[in-house]
C-alpha cells in the first residue's frame, strides 16, 4: 500500500499528489510513468510521474478527474492510501543538448512535461515553455514551468488568462519570428499533440510527443497500448511513452483510445450516482494500512526495548 503524504489543488478537478513510493522515487527519470490501482476492485491506469524526492522516498503525480478512477483518486487526501503503484515504467526522455527546445504542455500535460523540461535545461538547452488550456481554471503549474524555462508563454482558448489562442498559434509565432527551434516536446490531449506536429513538420522540426494509450500491465505483456508507428506496431509502455511524432499514426491512436468510451461513461455514472461504495473501499484500505503501520511500530518498539534491556 502506498500512502499519500500531501495533496494540493492545482485547478478545477486537477490535484497534485505526493505519494510515498521509495523504490520508484530512487529510480524515476523524466518521461517515465507509473501504473496505479486504487483498491481491490480497481482498474490499472497509467500516470506520468511529475517528479520525485529520493531522500523522502516520494513521487508526485498530477491527476485530472476524467473517468471514474481519476475522480475517485481526486477525492483522496493526505493520509489516505492507494493499493498499488508500480514503476517507474517506460523509457526515460532522451535528454541531450539539442539547442533550443520548445516545451508545450496542454493543461495537465504541463505537469508531465516539467521534469523533461528541467532536464533539458540542465543539459544546456535553451528552453521555451508554452502552457495552454481551454481556460484559466484548467491551467496548472505555471510558476513551475517558468522556473525551468528561459522564456514562458501562457495561452488560453477563451482568453481568460495569459494570451488568447491555441498553443499552436504561439509556436507558429515563434517560428515566424525567425527563432531556430531544434526540438519541440508536446504533451497534452492527442488533438493538441497532432496540431503541434502539423505546425512543426512543415518546418522540419523534430517533435517528441508522450502518448497516453490505454494500458493494463504496463510492462509489454498485453499489447493493448500498441500504436501504429510507420507501418510497425510499437508498445507505448515499453517502446515509449515518448515517440517521435513523425512516426505516429494519430488517427489510430485516437480511435484506439475511444475503445472503452461507453464503459468508461457507465463506470463514471455509476460512481457519481453512488460514490459511497468506493469511498468505503478506500476508507477500509486506509484502516488496513494504519493497522499494519501500528503493528510495525509496536514490533519496532519491542525490538528497541529488547536491545536496551540487553545493554542494561
Amino acid at each position, binding site marked *: 500500500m502506498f500512502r499519500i503524504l500531501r495533496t494540493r489543488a492545482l485547478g478545477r478537478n486537477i490535484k497534485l499528489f505526493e505519494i510515498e513510493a521509495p*523504490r*520508484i522515487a530512487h*529510480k524515476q527519470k523524466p518521461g517515465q510513468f507509473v501504473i496505479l*490501482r486504487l483498491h481491490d*476492485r*480497481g*482498474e*490499472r491506469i497509467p500516470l506520468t510521474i511529475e517528479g520525485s524526492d529520493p531522500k523522502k522516498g516520494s513521487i508526485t503525480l498530477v491527476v485530472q478527474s476524467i473517468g*471514474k*478512477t481519476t475522480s475517485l483518486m481526486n477525492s483522496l487526501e493526505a493520509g489516505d492510501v492507494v*493499493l*498499488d*503503484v*508500480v*514503476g*517507474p*515504467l517506460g523509457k526515460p526522455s532522451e535528454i541531450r543538448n539539442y539547442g533550443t527546445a520548445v516545451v508545450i504542455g496542454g493543461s495537465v500535460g504541463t505537469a508531465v512535461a516539467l521534469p523533461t523540461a528541467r532536464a533539458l535545461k540542465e543539459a544546456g538547452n535553451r528552453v521555451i515553455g508554452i502552457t495552454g488550456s481551454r481556460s484559466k481554471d484548467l491551467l496548472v503549474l505555471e510558476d513551475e514551468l517558468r522556473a525551468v524555462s528561459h522564456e514562458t508563454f501562457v495561452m488560453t482558448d477563451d482568453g481568460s488568462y495569459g494570451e488568447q489562442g491555441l498553443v499552436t498559434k504561439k509556436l507558429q509565432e515563434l517560428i515566424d519570428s525567425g527563432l531556430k527551434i531544434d526540438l519541440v516536446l508536446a504533451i497534452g490531449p492527442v488533438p493538441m499533440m497532432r496540431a503541434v506536429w502539423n505546425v512543426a513538420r512543415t518546418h522540419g522540426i523534430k517533435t517528441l510527443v508522450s502518448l497516453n494509450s490505454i494500458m*493494463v*500491465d504496463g*510492462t*509489454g*505483456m*498485453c*499489447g*493493448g497500448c*500498441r*500504436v*501504429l508507428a510507420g507501418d510497425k*506496431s510499437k*508498445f507505448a509502455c*515499453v517502446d515509449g511513452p515518448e515517440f517521435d511524432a513523425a512516426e505516429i*499514426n494519430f488517427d*489510430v491512436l485516437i*480511435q*484506439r483510445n*475511444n*475503445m*472503452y468510451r461507453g*464503459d*468508461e461513461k*457507465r*463506470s463514471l455514472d*455509476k460512481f457519481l450516482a453512488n460514490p459511497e461504495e468506493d469511498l468505503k473501499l478506500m476508507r477500509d484500505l486506509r484502516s488496513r494500512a494504519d493497522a499494519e503501520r501500528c503493528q510495525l511500530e509496536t514490533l519496532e518498539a519491542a525490538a528497541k526495548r529488547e536491545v536496551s534491556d540487553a545493554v542494561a
Partner: protein
Amino acid sequence: MPSHNPLANRDRMKIQRQHMPEQDAVERGHNFKEVNLGLPEEVAKIEAQRCLACEKTTCITACPVGVKIKDFVDLVLAGDYIGAARKIREDNSLPAVTGRVCPQEDQCEGKCVLAKKGSSLAIGYLERFVADYEQSTGQLGMPAIAPATGKKVAIVGSGPAGLSCAGDLIQKGHKVRVFEALHEIGGVLIYGIPEFRLPKEIVRQEVDNLRQMGVEFETNVVVGKTVTIDELMQEEGYDAVFLATGAGLPQFLGIAGEHLNGVYSANEFLTRVNLMRAYQFPEYDEPVYDCRGKDVIVVGGGNTALDAVRTALRLGARSASIFYRRTEAEMPARKEEVAHAKAEGVQFHFLVNPLAFEGDEKGWLKSVTCSRMELGEMDASGRRRPVPVQGSEFETAVSLAIIAVGTTANPLVQSTTPDLATNKRGYIVTDADSQKTSKRGVFAGGDIVTGAATVILAMGAGRNGAKAIHDYLTTDVF
C-alpha cells in the same frame, strides 16, 4: 514400503478408469465456475486401487518435477491423505494447480503401464484429490524445513517457475523473497489461466501455503525497472537471483487491420478477464469488450487459444470459434480442454489462416478475410507445414478477434543487465542442467529461457534452479 493395495494386479486391471464429475456443459458455458468438480473420496480410493505399483516407475521419470507418484497413491489407499500431500509437496509446491492444468496425457499418464492396456491411472485426478483434501481440512502437509543458512535468494516472477523454486529453496533453509511485477501473486496462473479451469482461490491458497513455509512476497516490483539485478545483489544483499519472468510480449499476425478496435492479444483479453475480473464489470472497474451477442474468433490452437475462446463464450458471445491453420491432430492444447470446449459449443475451423482484418468507418472490427490451408512438407517443429490453397480466400463477419499465436521474450530484465547473455530471440541463455546464466549468482528458468511452454515444465525448471542455487550457496563461493 509395504503396499496398501488389497487387490492382486489381475483384479486391479479389471477396474475401469474413474470419471471426473463435471459441471453440465450447457450450464457452464454461461458461468466462470470450475468445469471439473473433483473426485469424491470413495471414487479416489477406487481409482488408486488401479495402480500396479510398478517396479520401474516410468510415470515418475516422465514427470518434470519427479513427483513420487507410486508412494503418494499408496498413501491414498491407506487413507492418509495428508501424508500423501506431504509426499507430493516434497517435489511439487503447487499440487492443487498441477492436478488441474498439467498435460498428464503427455507426461505421467502417458507413460503409465495401464495406458498400453486401455486407459492410464488418473494420476492428475488423484493429485488434485489429495491437494483439495489438504486444503479443505486446513492441515498443510508441510515438508520439513532445514535450519536457517543465513543466505538470501531473490526470485523474479511469481509464476509456476518462481513459486516452485521458492518452495524448494525455503525447504533448504534459505531466506527467499519473490518479486512480482503485477499486483497479485501467481503470474500466468492468475492472469492467464481462467477461473473455470483453475479457480484463483486455489492459487491464493497455494501461495498462502508457501507464505506459511516462510516465503516472502513483494508485489509491484518490475525487476529491471523498479530495481535492477545488480542492486538486488549489491545493495539489498541477495546472494543469488532466480529469473522466472515468463514468456513476455504477445505476438501478433503482422497483417492489415490489427490496430482495429476489437482485435486483442490473448494476453490482454485474458488479463482483463482473469487478473482484473472484467467479467464482473462494472462491479470491478476494468472493462473488456462486450461479447454479448457477438461473433468471436480466436486465432491459434494452443491452451491459451482455448482459454480465450471459452472465456468469450462465457462472456455471452453468439458464436465463439477457433481458427487454426493446421488440423486438430496438430493442436498443442490439452485434449481435455478441446473436448470440454466442443461440449460447450465452441466451433473449430481447421486449416484456415487470417490474411486481413477489415473495420467500419469508426475503426471497429467487422470482418476477417482468411485463406484455406493444406498441410505440406514437414517443418522444423516436426509437423506438416500449412500452405495456403490458391484462390480459397473468403471473408466472414466477426466483431472480436483474439490473437493467440504465441509470445516473444520480454526484454525488461535483460536490457538493464548487460552481462546477462541472451540468444538471438532474446531468451536468457542458461546451462541446460544447472539453469546457470552467464552472470555469477544469477540463474534462470521457465518460459524466459525456453519460450512459451507448460506450467509443469516451468516448475521443473524452478526445481532445477533451486537445486543449482542451493549447490552454489553451500559449496561454490561460500
